[in-house]
């Protein structure tokens, strides 16, 4: 029989009289201090997300936490301290720089450069027309082709994008949502043309449509048919692509749209639960698909709050997956995530300062236990990054990984009174948001009611007001400004030549391909869209192999599903 251990299971030790005397002395001394005034002093008692802060945290702030229930050990449920038993000792995070611009040929050259510099995974940025489901020659695409990312109109472009790259050896992340099912079909088809079977493909596709309605606004179809497409993708990948992460449930864009850390955490996990529920409702076994769900978070500039957010995310996910959804496989409980430093924290003023911001944010991501990381380049607030600034961003990660030694101990802030208390507070705030969302009837209903959009707009305006009042300081923006500065850094320019080239290419493609095959595959796709028991993925692969363009495929699907329009609130 196990011997009863005579000590509390809580995180805090029993305070001794001597310790209590010290506390009283400190409290008295603390009360005598005068809080500093001047720029930035208006917000010293709260996080960037307005979570109230104490001057100092102590055992009483964590006394309610239970060591086994709330903290545990790395690699052990509920994974507050990380999902790997040895943290980064066994494996560093993947350094994955998001890149894409101009034509597939131009981006392919950037990929070869990044791989030659030691990057270990690719990450595709698509241009706006591709993200919204328009071909480069559509009237809506004017002025946008190749600007924010690479233009991919058809399988032909995807083949060029991965020219000379071993798709079986690298992992690829594709940031695309509305037309994600089409991009995935193109990726599979491009690989299979090189003789690499789909089962061998590793990577992630974002495919997180719920956050599009909430924050990023790159949607095509209304929420309900879009959810069906995502369930189809998850079912297809679960069966045929065991190494593929089927969805990357993203808080990044929610944060960039102006949310607080707690909103990012809560809305993202709520989206995750909505996907789990949709897949389970379609008859999928939770343990068959949940291990391949992954997450994507923002690393903002409030250092400890971000670390607490990552830790809370793991704990909440584990608890809900095990307790609420009945997952039995530990991998279903483990929240894996990619992180990107906060684009919205970067400033156009004195852009070199962004290098420093990115380094702190990257450190928070690593102390929070991220599985992969994108560090923003200093010039991304002005234009797409140049090769030089991308290199500095990648070197920032390498310095962190190889020089600072922060990777040598797992969850080094575990047990910190402050970080544990903040982790717990963020979990509490997230649970309170889950309750509000449930009152609407679920995530889709809350989207339709404008709940998330209003919450985010409110938070973003509140934050902006605190900057205006100089309660918060952004160096170079509302303090320490320089007069009439013009950045001396070089900027990357995408010329209109890209647009002309891409339009010409898609027109040549349409003239050269087998028109009958195009029409036939599109008809079969429409039939599949009308039949909720069918899966759209195999039909999409047929369409892309027939060189149907993305715009044509989207139009066919819109015929069945319709197009979404938002009621805007500000």
């Amino acid at each position, binding site marked *: 029989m196990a011997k009863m251990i005579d000590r509390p299971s809580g995180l805090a030790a029993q305070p001794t009289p001597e310790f209590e005397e010290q506390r009283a002395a400190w409290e008295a001394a603390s009360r005598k201090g005068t809080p500093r005034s001047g720029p930035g002093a208006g917000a010293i008692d709260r996080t960037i997300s307005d979570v109230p802060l104490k001057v100092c945290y102590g055992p009483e702030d964590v006394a309610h936490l239970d060591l086994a229930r709330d903290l545990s050990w790395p690699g052990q449920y509920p994974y507050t301290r990380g999902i790997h038993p040895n943290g980064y000792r066994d494996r560093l995070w993947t350094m994955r720089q998001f890149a894409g611009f101009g034509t597939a040929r131009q981006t392919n050259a950037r990929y070869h450069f990044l791989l030659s510099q030691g990057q270990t995974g690719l990450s595709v940025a698509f241009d*706006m027309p591709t993200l*919204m489901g328009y071909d480069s020659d559509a009237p809506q695409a004017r002025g946008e082709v190749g600007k924010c990312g690479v233009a991919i109109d058809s399988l032909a472009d995807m083949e060029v994008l991965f020219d000379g790259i071993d798709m079986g050896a690298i992992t690829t992340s594709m940031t695309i949502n509305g037309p994600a099912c089409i991009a995935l079909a193109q990726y599979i088809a491009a690989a299979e043309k090189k003789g690499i079977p789909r089962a061998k493909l590793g990577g992630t596709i974002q495919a997180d449509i719920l956050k599009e309605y909430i924050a990023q606004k790159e949607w095509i179809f209304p929420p309900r048919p879009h959810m069906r497409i995502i369930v189809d993708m998850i079912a297809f990948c679960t069966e045929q692509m065991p190494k593929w992460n089927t969805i990357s449930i993203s808080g990044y864009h929610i944060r960039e749209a102006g949310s607080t850390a707690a909103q990012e955490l809560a809305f993202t996990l709520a989206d995750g639960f909505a996907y789990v529920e949709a897949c389970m409702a379609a008859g999928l076994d939770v343990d068959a698909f949940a291990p391949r769900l992954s997450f994507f978070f923002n690393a903002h500039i409030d250092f400890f709050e971000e670390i607490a957010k990552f830790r809370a995310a793991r704990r909440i996910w584990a608890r809900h997956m095990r307790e609420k959804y009945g997952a039995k496989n530990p991998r279903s409980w483990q929240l894996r995530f990619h992180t990107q430093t906060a684009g919205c924290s970067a400033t156009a003023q004195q852009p070199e300062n962004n290098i420093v911001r990115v380094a702190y944010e990257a450190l928070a991501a690593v102390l929070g236990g991220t599985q992969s990381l994108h560090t923003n380049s200093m010039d991304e607030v002005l234009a797409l990054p140049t090769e030089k600034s991308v290199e500095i961003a990648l070197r920032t990660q390498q310095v962190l990984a190889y020089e600072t030694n922060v990777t040598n101990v797992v969850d080094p802030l575990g047990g910190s009174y402050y970080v544990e208390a903040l982790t717990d507070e963020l979990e509490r705030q997230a649970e309170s948001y889950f309750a509000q969302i449930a009152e609407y009837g679920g995530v889709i209903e809350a989207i339709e009611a404008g709940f998330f959009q209003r919450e985010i707009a409110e938070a973003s305006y509140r934050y902006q007001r605190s900057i205006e009042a100089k309660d918060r300081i952004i160096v170079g923006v509302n303090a320490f400004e320089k007069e009439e500065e013009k950045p001396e850094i070089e900027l990357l320019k995408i010329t209109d030549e890209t647009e002309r080239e891409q339009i010409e290419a898609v027109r040549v493609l349409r003239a050269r391909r087998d028109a009958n095959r195009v029409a036939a595959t599109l008809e079969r796709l429409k039939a599949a869209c009308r039949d909720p028991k069918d899966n759209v993925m195999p039909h999409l692969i047929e369409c892309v192999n027939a060189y149907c363009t993305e715009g044509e495929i989207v139009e066919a699907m819109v015929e069945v599903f319709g197009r979404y329009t938002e009621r805007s609130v500000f």
Partner: protein
Amino acid sequence: MAARPLRIVVAKAGLDGHDRGAKVIARALRDAGMEVIYTGLFQTPQQIVQTAIQEDADGIGLSILSGAHMTLFPEILRELRERGADDIVFFGGGTIPPDDAEELRRMGVRAIFTPGTPLKEIISFVERECGKRRELVG
């Protein structure tokens, strides 16, 4: 009788879904006492100018973060001129490199505000310039 408040159209054009800046500006102008019409996303230049004329707006503020500013700003300028509505104060902001901002100002965009511009600077610009327009047009 008190003069009616300034009326401003805050617009998003093209395929760009980044609406944080546009919404903050819309709120700030409204809190400063103006009437604000937010177009919502994915508007064409024609739709934006049409809205401004129909609403008898004093100004149009266009927000672009997708890189398409050198296409969309000039199209709205052209549309305003063609419809004889170029008294409407047209300004904008977003991720716009300094050289492009200068070029746009040369073309006739009255101001380009890049990230980090204090809201009060934008508000006082709108009050001043749209106020002048109101005096002229009546």
